[in-house]
């Protein structure tokens, strides 16, 4: 008889993964929109350098990113030390640390999507809004953002999918504590290592279904709209 995996083995990592990936996507999307808008619309020296820096997490090995993050937010890290001394916060080996790791790794996907979306918004619509008496803020939230929204959302969904599968950087920063920082992809690794093939099979199928659904949905979002 096959032993069904217990909820402790499947449900707990699944919920934790969705929580981590969800928060990571929120952070990455907020930062992605702001930076992509600046790069797409403002002319400043070093613009292309900023663009390259923002894309870096996509090509760097996640373990290297994780190491950098430890240097930054670890107990003795530049930011981490300040956080611990002043606020008593330690991100290492917590689910919040996993969120930071996943957000950094997933960020380029939202950023790239948002930049392309902003660049695809015709300037004339923004100018029309300005001539109609609208401030730059109002032009952004009533014209630029709604016209770029689908592209940004498609990027955010890819980022979510990427965050779901994050392994390397998360392991470096948050470790693999069952029920606290052990996300799906790490749980799969641990299950295989421990020879629990039935648990691994189940986790793999669940992960695959979630990822495929997201890809299909983001593909639909990128289809052209407003065509005449």
């Amino acid at each position, binding site marked *: 008889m096959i032993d069904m995996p217990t909820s402790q083995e499947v449900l707990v990592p699944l919920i934790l993964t969705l929580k981590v990936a969800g928060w990571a996507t929120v952070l990455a999307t907020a930062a992605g929109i702001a930076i992509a808008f600046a790069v797409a619309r403002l002319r400043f020296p070093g613009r292309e350098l900023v663009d390259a820096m923002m894309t870096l997490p996509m090509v760097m090995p996640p373990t290297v990113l994780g190491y950098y993050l430890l240097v930054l937010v670890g107990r003795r890290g530049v930011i981490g030390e300040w956080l611990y001394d002043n606020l008593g916060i330690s991100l290492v080996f917590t689910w919040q640390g996993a969120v930071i790791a996943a957000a950094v790794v997933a960020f380029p996907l939202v950023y790239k999507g948002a930049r392309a979306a902003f660049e695809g918004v015709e300037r004339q619509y923004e*100018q029309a809004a300005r001539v109609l*008496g609208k401030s730059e803020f109002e032009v952004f*939230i009533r014209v630029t953002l709604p016209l770029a929204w689908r592209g940004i959302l498609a990027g955010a969904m890819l980022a979510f999918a990427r965050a779901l599968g994050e392994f390397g950087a998360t392991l470096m920063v948050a470790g693999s504590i069952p029920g606290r920082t052990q996300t799906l992809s790490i749980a799969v690794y641990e299950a295989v290592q421990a020879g629990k093939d039935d648990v691994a099979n189940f986790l793999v199928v669940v992960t695959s279904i979630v990822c495929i659904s997201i890809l299909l949905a983001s593909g639909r979002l990128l289809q052209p709209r407003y065509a*005449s």
Partner: protein
Amino acid sequence: MRIEVDIHKTLRSNGRDFTLDVKFACEDALGVVFGPSGAGKSLTLRAIAGLERPDYGRIVVGDKVLFDSMAGIDVRASERTIGYLFQDYALFPHLNVEENISFGAKRWWERRLPAEAARRVAELVDVFELRGLNKAYPAQLSGGQRQRVALARALIQRPHLLLLDEPFAALDPLLRGRMRTELVAIRSMFKVPMLAITHDPEDVSVLADTVILLNQGKVEKVVDVKSAPYRDGEGRVSEGSIRELLTGMDEVGPPPLPRKTIRAVK
């Protein structure tokens, strides 16, 4: 109303320099800037609207100084209260007809239009014969309907001046005549001064009291066409004399591009 324009701007693109050096004043409520493509008409219009910043100069509309490089004045486009009809109308594709028209009258935090603005939108929908199209999106409209929506959208903020960028170029020839007549009617109904740019002589005879002839970035002539020989005794436009005035102008091409080959020989 008086429009005073005296602007200078040098543009550099692909190694080609274009210098706009435009100076004219227009007292009439109907002005037309006429010239071949590449003469700097659009640039002039955009500068008046505040969408382009001249290198130096001065722009006055009515009693309001909108730009004066000497005095350091550069009123933002959003604060000029000037209507602008874009050549292809630039209707917001994500908003329906009603939302497009009310765009200028609604603030971002308001979920619904203030009653006064809503009345005005309804009025404009009526005037521009857009009833039944309130919920239609720009992509679903014909060329003439798009132009009407764009005009209504521009007029809702009661502009001091309406700028028209090649107002009929995007329409098919059959529709053009009808929309010209419509525009003249709109103009007398709303009493808004208009300044249009065009390279179509027909637009001049319908829309102009004053013609500003522009070529290669410079004003060649400013002609008052309100009286003889351009109007007959009853005030009708004499097409012949307008054509004569514009002869040659519409055939002048843009300034020749500097040849890369010539530079290579040097």
